[in-house]
C-alpha cells in the first residue's frame, strides 16, 4: 500500500508539471468563452445553455485526457525505460499500476473540479440557482472518465497506442448508445440483435447511466435509489475491470 502511494505521489507531481495542466488552463479559458457565446445565442434560457455547454466541455476534456493518458501510460514508460527502473524496486506490478492510475486520476479529478466549478459559476452568474445535482453530475463525470482511463490502459496492454485510442473511443461511443439502442423497435423486434445488445450491456460499460447531465438540465432532480444503483454498478464494474487489467499486466512480457 505504501509503495502504491509513493508511485501515485510522484506520478501526480510528474503530470502536474507536464503540459497536461496547462491544457486544463486553456480549456477553462475556452469554456468561459464558449459558454458566453452559446448563452448569447440562447433565447430565454442562457443559464441552462451555459451549464449544458460547461458540463459538456468538462466531460469531453476528461474523456480526452483519460484516453490520451491511459493509452500512453505504459508504452511511454517502457520506451523511456522508467518502468524497468521502478519495477526493479521492491514493488509488485499490481501496486505500480494502481499507483499510476491513482496518480493520473487525481489529474482527472482536478480537471473535473476546475471546469465544473467554472461551469457552475457561470450558470449562477447568468441567473441560475444552485442545485446539488450539479455536484453529482460532475462527480459521476469524473467516475466516467476514470472508467475510460482504465479501459484505455486495458487496450494499451493488448495492442499499440494508436489502436488503443481508437478502441477506447469506440467503447466510449457504444457505452453511451447501447442503453438507447435497446429501446429502438428494430432491436426489440429482432431477437438476434436484441440478444447482442443484452450481451453488450453486460460486458461493456454502461456509460449512459453515469451521465447525469440531462437530469441537471431538464429534470432538476434524480431519484436517490437510482444514484445509489449507478454508484454500485460503477464500483462493481470498475473493480472487475481493474482486476482483469492487473491480471494481464502481471503476466505481460515487458520487452
Amino acid at each position, binding site marked *: 500500500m505504501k509503495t502504491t502511494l509513493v508511485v501515485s505521489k510522484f506520478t501526480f*507531481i510528474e503530470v502536474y508539471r507536464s503540459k497536461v495542466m496547462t491544457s486544463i488552463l486553456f480549456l477553462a479559458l475556452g469554456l468561459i468563452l464558449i459558454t458566453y457565446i452559446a448563452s448569447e445565442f440562447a433565447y430565454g434560457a442562457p443559464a441552462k445553455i451555459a451549464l449544458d455547454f460547461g458540463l459538456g466541455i468538462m466531460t469531453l476534456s476528461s474523456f480526452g485526457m483519460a484516453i490520451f493518458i491511459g493509452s500512453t501510460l505504459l508504452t511511454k514508460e517502457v520506451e523511456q525505460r522508467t518502468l524497468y527502473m521502478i519495477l526493479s524496486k521492491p514493488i509488485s506490478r499490481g501496486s505500480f499500476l494502481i499507483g499510476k492510475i491513482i496518480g493520473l486520476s487525481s489529474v482527472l479529478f482536478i480537471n473535473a473540479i476546475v471546469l465544473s466549478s467554472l461551469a457552475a459559476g457561470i450558470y449562477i452568474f447568468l441567473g441560475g440557482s444552485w442545485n446539488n445535482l450539479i455536484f453529482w453530475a460532475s462527480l459521476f463525470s469524473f467516475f466516467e472518465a476514470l472508467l475510460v482511463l482504465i479501459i484505455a490502459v486495458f487496450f494499451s496492454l493488448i495492442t499499440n497506442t494508436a489502436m488503443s485510442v481508437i478502441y477506447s473511443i469506440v467503447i466510449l461511443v457504444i457505452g453511451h448508445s447501447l442503453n438507447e439502442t435497446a429501446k429502438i423497435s428494430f432491436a426489440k423486434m429482432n431477437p438476434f440483435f436484441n440478444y447482442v445488445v443484452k450481451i453488450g450491456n453486460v460486458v461493456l460499460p454502461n456509460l449512459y447511466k453515469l451521465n447525469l447531465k440531462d437530469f441537471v438540465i431538464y429534470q432538476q432532480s434524480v431519484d436517490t435509489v437510482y444514484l445509489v444503483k449507478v454508484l454500485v454498478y460503477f464500483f462493481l464494474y470498475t473493480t472487475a475491470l481493474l482486476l482483469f487489467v492487473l491480471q494481464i499486466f502481471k503476466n505481460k512480457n515487458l*520487452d
Partner: protein
Amino acid sequence: MIQFQEISKSFRYNFWEKEFKALDNVTFSINEGELVGFLGANGAGKTTLIKILMDFSRQDSGKVTFSKKLGETSNQIKSAIGYLPEKAYLYQYLTGREFLEYSGSLNGIKKGELKNLISIWSERMQIAYALDRRIHGYSKGMQQRLGFISSLIHKPKILILDEPLSGLDPLGRRDFKNILKELNNDGITIFFSSHIVPDVEEICQKVIFIEKGKLIYEGSIDSLILKNSNDLYKVNYIEDNKIISKIIHESEKLEFLSKLINEKVNVLEIEKEKPRLEEIIYKIKA
C-alpha cells in the same frame, strides 16, 4: 548467487515472419563477490537475458535461480538487487532529488537516512550541483549518473547494469569504472553488460561472452588469455646504450636470460607475449 539454467527465448515480430531465437540454452552463474563482464555484440541477447533476470520478460524455457542469501520472496530479492537499464530516460518533469527520493522510498529507506545517502552519493557521482534541476535539462551522462545512484542508494548485494558505460565521455567512463571497482572491493557483486571489450578487460575478473544468443565462454579473463597465448616471451635489455627487444621461445628463455646475466647486460623487462581480450574475442567470433 544467481544461476541461469538453459535459458531460451524466441521472438516473432509478425505472425508471418520466422521466429527469431534471441537466447539459445544459455547456462552460467554469477558468484558472490565477483565483478563479471557480460560481453556480446549489439543484438547478441544481453539485454534480453537481463530482462529475464529482472522478471520483465519471461523465458520460453529454462530457469533463473537466486541464492537464498539474496532473499526468499520476490520483494526481498528485489531489495538485494540494484538495476540500471540501458539508456534510461528518467522522469523528465521530476528533479534529480525527487527521482532519488522516489527510488529510495520504494526501497523503504527512511526519510532522514535517504537525505543523507542522496547527499553522499550525489557528491561522489559529481551531480550534487544539479539535483534540484528538472531532469529534462540533464545531459545523457548526468542522467546515467543519476540512474546509477538510484540503483545503488539502497546498498544492494548485487548490481545488474545494462551497458552502464555507453554514452559517457572518457572521464565519466573512468569515474564509473573506478566506482565499480570500489563497490566490488566493498563486497558488492557486479554483473554488467557491455559491447566494449577493453572496458571489461580492464576491471573484470570474469567474463561471460554470448554471440547470437549462444554462450561462447564463461570463466576468468586470465585463463582465457593464457589459453590463447603462445609460448613466446619478449625480452627488453640495454646494449650499447640502445634498448633491444627480442622475442624468444619458452624453451630458450632460461638459457638466454643466463647468458644476458653472465654478460652483465642490463635486462629491463621480460614479458610473456599474450593477446588482448579483444583479439581473442574477434578470433572466437571468426
